[in-house]
């Protein structure tokens, strides 16, 4: 009796979990499919290579593609070394229960929960106004760097802590110094997890609107330098849709955004498998 009824309960729970997973997947597929169906026909060679004209009603979106890539690049280049460095400091150089570790970890966790508009406001006040950097690629990139830093720290730290302690002991027992052990054993073993955190952050940068529109601006012309303002694809999409300028081009931009994020993931994973994590 007991056995039979617990088997029934188990099956019911299994079915419910399946249903939950399936509905999430369905919603996701429907959204992506809808955007691609409406957006893909808009994408053409001209759409990719021309800058927006008439507020984005016509022309392409080339300057926003460049803007997206530049802002994201700045953010990643700045946040990655700081984030990984902090993660190694936390995981390898401090004791888990020390005051420094707890303060840094608490800050990182708090920062991770702040809405992006707050980062945007901070970036606007600090970089754009106080430091006089104006709306620019640099202001936007720095703001995004601060925004993604907690993610990079946490994912990197988790990846480092997941490296079996035995690997460290082996390295030490073979005459390795702490630095050699970190560089030759811990880093390569953690690199996949670290890279995943960075890729995740790239995605967040590419998709961010609130923090970027306040710091990088929304200029439509082609960006020529780190100090000039720009508009990212996500911001372009937001403005096209919210100001009812062109839903057609908004969907085209959104479709391209999805494709871009997908491409970044594929390329990054291929590179990691090919060059960094080989044999692991």
């Amino acid at each position, binding site marked *: 009796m007991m056995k039979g009824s617990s088997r029934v309960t188990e099956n019911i729970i299994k079915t419910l979990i399946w249903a939950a997973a399936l509905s999430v997947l369905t919603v996701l597929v429907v959204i992506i499919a809808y955007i691609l169906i409406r957006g893909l026909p808009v994408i053409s060679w001209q759409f990719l290579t021309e800058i927006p004209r008439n507020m984005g009603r016509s022309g392409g979106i080339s300057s926003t593609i460049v803007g997206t890539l530049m802002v994201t690049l700045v953010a990643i280049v700045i946040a990655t070394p700081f984030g990984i460095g902090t993660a190694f400091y936390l995981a390898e150089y401090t004791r888990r229960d020390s005051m420094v570790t707890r303060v840094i970890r608490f800050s990182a966790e708090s920062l991770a929960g702040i809405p992006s508009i707050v980062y945007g406001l901070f970036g606007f006040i600090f970089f754009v106004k106080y430091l006089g950097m104006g709306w620019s690629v640099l202001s936007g990139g720095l703001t995004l760097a601060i925004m993604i830093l907690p993610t990079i720290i946490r994912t990197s730290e988790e990846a480092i802590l997941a490296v079996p302690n035995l690997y460290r002991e082996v390295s*030490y027992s*073979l*005459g390795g110094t702490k630095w050699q052990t970190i560089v*030759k054993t811990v880093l390569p073993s953690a690199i996949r997890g670290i890279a995943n955190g960075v890729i995740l952050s790239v995605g967040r940068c590419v998709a961010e609107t609130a923090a970027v529109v306040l710091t990088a601006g929304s200029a439509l012309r082609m960006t020529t330098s780190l100090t000039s303002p720009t508009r990212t694809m996500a911001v372009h999409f937001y403005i096209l849709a919210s100001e009812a300028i062109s839903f057609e081009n908004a969907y085209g931009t959104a479709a391209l955004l999805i494709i871009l994020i997908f491409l970044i993931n594929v390329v990054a994973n291929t590179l990691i498998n090919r060059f960094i994590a080989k044999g692991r």
Partner: protein
Amino acid sequence: MAGQHKISVRDMNVWFSDKQVIHSLNIDIPSNEIISVLGPANSGITTLLRSLNRLSDLNPAMRVEGEILLDGNNIRDVSVTELRRKVGMVFDVPTPLPISIFDNIAYGPRLSGTKNMKNLTGIVEQSLREAALWDDVKDRLYTPAMSLSGGQQQRLCIARVLALKPEVILLDRPCSGLDPLSTAKIEESLKNLKAQFTIIIAPHNVQQASRVSDHIAFMLMGHLVEHGTAEKILTNPKDQRTNDYLTGRFG
């Protein structure tokens, strides 16, 4: 007399936080022999071995007092990386790093600055031959070490230590997870290696101790009960507790 002792341990006491796990241990370990350190679980054998290459430094809660002399010099007075190259260690589970067979063996030499590929290749081949693994792996040196069988992995770990050109080799129950054939191969290599090295092994059991040892030390609850030549300990132990252990009355 002192000259022929490779390692001398003087009045060693070890604590984990405030729990003492080794009590005033004294032992002299002769060169070019195999000494087994026997005892039931939790006797402190792993603790003793990890103190000899200062792997104990890695655990802030672990405190080692007393003197440990290597060739008459206190191991606290030499650089710790140099000490660990001289006193190599094989762990109780196979511990290949997640890199190729070649890179595993070359790991130690590379750390100490050997970059020349020809030298490295020579060291790798020689170490693998000495660990009786060369014929198994010579055609797949660049494949992941993780793909080897358990016994091969453990011989890889021995080869990796040999590549350091050490003077002492510590083996902490190196055959615990291995089948009899792999165990026999490892024991065979150890006997061949003792001409060049001083070998301290925590054996798997009394039978293994009797097969490989020149000397045997018996530990119990953090105390060194007695030690002497293998023949003497196995046939005529002085202490009742040693006798009880050897005859399988506990442990």
